[in-house]
């Protein structure tokens, strides 16, 4: 098993709703793995379990063959798992630069820093500016994050997750509600980061985005994996068409394309 991230036989129920049942998902090191499925199929719940926001009922999560089941979110982040949220979450009353610095405390954590030292040394600020330039919002560094547009918030969220050099980044609908040219921009950035060694696990409804970007795609339906494989195989898998595109009564679960 050389998977960088492995969620093994995860089950999770909310009251009477079985969000995940016996769900196993693997993410190979260096891959861009897509996670698709209709609304309510358990994708975000799986993200929450991997990153410590929810506890599992049964099953285990491994990062690099190290068991991290039910690790708290701050621990998961320290272990190199970064994530974004479906409803983009930033710190609106901090500046863009301050948003970046919140995450920068883990860099160079070998030596002890006084908690009263000013936030963000020159190295942290340089690194933050590099990332903001990389994602293309460096011009807004001193602006309050509240003033950013929706697309810029998505880019900020991606930027500050990258501050700590995570081994794997979990993106929850990076292309959701974003205009087509920005989608291309985000896809290009993900490819560039992946080429430099960052692994990605991406939940997304935009099929062109997923099929164009991912090395492997895993399909969830009713909390279980119905198919997993390269995008060209998945695209034509009858079980996937059945589950994802829907046959009769699942019209409202149509992916936004």
């Amino acid at each position, binding site marked *: 098993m050389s998977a960088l991230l492995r969620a093994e036989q995860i089950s999770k129920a909310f009251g009477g709703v079985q969000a995940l049942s016996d769900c196993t998902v693997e993410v190979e090191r260096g891959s861009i793995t897509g996670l698709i499925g209709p609304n309510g199929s358990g994708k975000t719940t799986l993200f929450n379990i991997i990153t410590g926001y929810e506890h599992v009922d049964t099953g285990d999560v491994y990062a690099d063959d190290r068991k991290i089941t039910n690790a708290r979110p701050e621990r998961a982040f320290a272990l190199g798992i970064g994530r974004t949220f479906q409803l983009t979450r930033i710190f609106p009353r*901090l500046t863009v*630069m301050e948003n970046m610095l919140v995450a920068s405390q883990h860099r160079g954590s070998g030596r002890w820093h006084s908690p009263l030292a000013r936030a963000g040394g020159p190295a942290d600020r340089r690194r933050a500016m590099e990332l903001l330039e990389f994602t293309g919002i460096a011009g807004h560094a001193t602006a309050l994050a509240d003033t950013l547009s929706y697309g810029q918030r998505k880019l900020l969220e991606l930027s500050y997750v990258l501050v700590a050099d995570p081994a794997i980044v979990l993106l929850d609908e990076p292309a959701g509600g974003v205009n087509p040219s920005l989608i291309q921009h985000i896809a290009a950035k993900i490819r560039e980061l992946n080429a430099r060694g960052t692994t990605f696990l991406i939940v997304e409804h935009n099929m062109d985005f997923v099929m164009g970007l991912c090395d492997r795609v895993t399909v969830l339906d009713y909390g279980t994996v119905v198919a997993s494989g390269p995008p060209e195989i998945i695209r034509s898998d009858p079980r996937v068409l059945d589950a994802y595109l829907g046959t009769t009564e699942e019209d409202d679960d149509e992916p936004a394309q």
Partner: protein
Amino acid sequence: MTPASLMAGPDLARPGRLQQATAWRAGGVLALLAAVALFPLVFTNALVTTIAVDTLIFVAAAAAWNIFSGYSGYISLGHAVFFGCGAYTVGIGARDWQLTGLSVFALLPLAAVVAAVVAVPFGLVALRVRRHTFVVVTIAVFFIFQLMAFNFSFTGGTTGVAAPFLVWNPGTYNDPFYYLALAIGVATIGLSWLIRGSRFGLQLRAIRDDEDRARGLGVRTMRVKLAAFMISAFVTGLLGGLWFYFITQVLPQSGFDPAFDLSVALMAFLGGLGTVSGPVLGALVLVPAQQYLTEQFTNDYLSQIVLGTLFLGVILLLPRGVIPTASEKITSWRARRSGRLAGQAAAATGLAAAPPGEPSAAAGPAGKESAR
């Protein structure tokens, strides 16, 4: 605090302005400090200096409250617990160890430590819940402490604890209290300013904006919240001890006083929650106003009604407080003006104005938020 300090936002167009503004701000703070330090020498009327001591105690208390509640967004209405614990610590210590005169002041650090220690179990319980639930839990804990003060024998029950008689020159009786309260106030404001710009302060403000997101970026939220709660309690306990010796008596309803919680919260809200100078301004305005109303009308309830009305007015008209609103107004006014000036300059020299977000602008720590 001063007009200069309000206007000291980073001016992107002209870097020289930044140093000038910093110099103005430093000058303003020094002038204010000098004025406050000379105050008891000019005003020797005991009535006036008594109000001044009260004001300084609340300046420090509001600043301390703001270090926790203002920065983290967890609105505590239980800080009277720390104030009362500090007061009772000094009272009981002086009574049981038979301390008199100046030696009673030696108990102040103990009062602060006791309050900070009380903050640990209090925080571990209350900080598990957020927002309204947190407020309700702090009020509940507050009433538990008031009830304990009423019912334990070592707290003196309903008669409370009286301070040993202080034999001082009546003409300058208030002065030591004044300068001690001033020193605590200045230190607390300095600490608040340090924390605001620090890594610790940034983590607190990140918690205020989105606690779960902060956890997902590696912030150990419980540790950070509890540390801020303890720092806040430490200062509040210290002030409680000082207040006790100043008032010379503590009763369960005066040491653990719900009006204390409402007052410090109102001061911070009026001046600007989460700003360094806002709570200070709030206390400087509200305490003398409250005392004046009480003196004028002798009816305590009238001042309460006026305060309550003021509170509603603040929430309605200035929900973010005086300092943030004023600073925003000034910033936008200056931006308009400097934009016009830059436009003229560009027209004159044929050069474009510096684009926003150049590296020098990005190097400024926190933009307009930190300027307050």
